[in-house]
């Protein structure tokens, strides 16, 4: 870090813009979908969180609607670091 950096203040507006763009892209995608997916996502997250520490960013639930059949895709990533059962960790 140079001396000059001490005087430079990082501006926060570009960070705000970027965070909003990412968030809204996600929210707009999920807007048209039925609430079922978000309900499932919350409940699955709650069940897993009972046993393993998990961040909600690590769970993806999506629904592919077909003519006669729909596919529910659930992708859960459990980071190794926190993959310790709560009872043992406590």
């Amino acid at each position: 870090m140079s001396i000059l950096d001490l005087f430079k203040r990082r501006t926060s507006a570009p960070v705000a813009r970027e965070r909003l763009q990412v968030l809204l892209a996600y929210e707009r995608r999920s807007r048209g979908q039925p609430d079922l997916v978000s309900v499932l996502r919350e409940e699955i997250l709650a069940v897993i969180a009972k046993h393993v520490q998990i961040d909600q960013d690590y769970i993806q639930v999506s629904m592919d609607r077909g003519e006669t059949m729909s596919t529910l895709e659930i992708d859960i990533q459990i980071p190794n670091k926190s993959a310790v059962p709560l009872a043992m960790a406590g």
Partner: protein
Amino acid sequence: MGKVVVVTSGKGGVGKTTSTAALGAAVAKTGKRVALVDFDVGLRNLDLIMGAERRVVFDLVNVIQGTAKLSQALIRDKRLETLYLLPASQTRDKDALTEEGVAEVIARLRQVFDYVFCDSPAGIERGAQLAMRFADEAVIVTNPEVSSVRDSDRIIGLLDARTMRAEQGEHIAKHVLVTRYDAARAARGEMLSIDDVLEILSVPLLGIIPESQDVLRASNLGAPVTLSEPTNAAAKAYLEAARRLEGEDLPVIVPFERKGFLDRLLGRRAA
């Protein structure tokens, strides 16, 4: 047939009521007949901002329930004879408004007035949805701040899905009104810029209202800022926004703050 404009935002405290009063008064000043309808049942405030709080006898819920006539509930402004207010009730019953009732009141107001401004409650629940339900146009009040922009995006989604016009496959005109804009902070990159807000929401800009003590003073006095202090910066911005709402092609000038000496010295950059 008058035009119905909903003033909405999702987030509370961004300036919906203040903007409804200021825009409505600005349009009424041009001789158009304007009705301001407060949809915030249980938490009405438009009467207070308009300085008519002691003149409320009947309200929107009374009209819908048939206990008062529309003409009895409408309050004429003391300053402008073309400006009227239909207050919300202070009842705690959230279901006091029915869709059929609102439809009828709006239809009747449309026949008499050139403009009907619906001041939406905060949130995305029933009250907010009823306020936008019969709108032809929407003014989305947004502060240049992350939570307000996110909520505005949500409201835009609702406008495109839940309004009568949207359901009938018609277009609902939307405008963003940026309020509480602080040019100095935006120049220092501490606040979302107008370009940021417009790029994210992709809705055309109706106006930029600078952060101003005059707006607060106008609220204290119970007068729309466009009537009480029409030469102030915020009032001018509202008057121009009202002209754009009426279809005038008036360029928006972003309030500009020259960089201070200290900012240059410290190399602070605008975003």
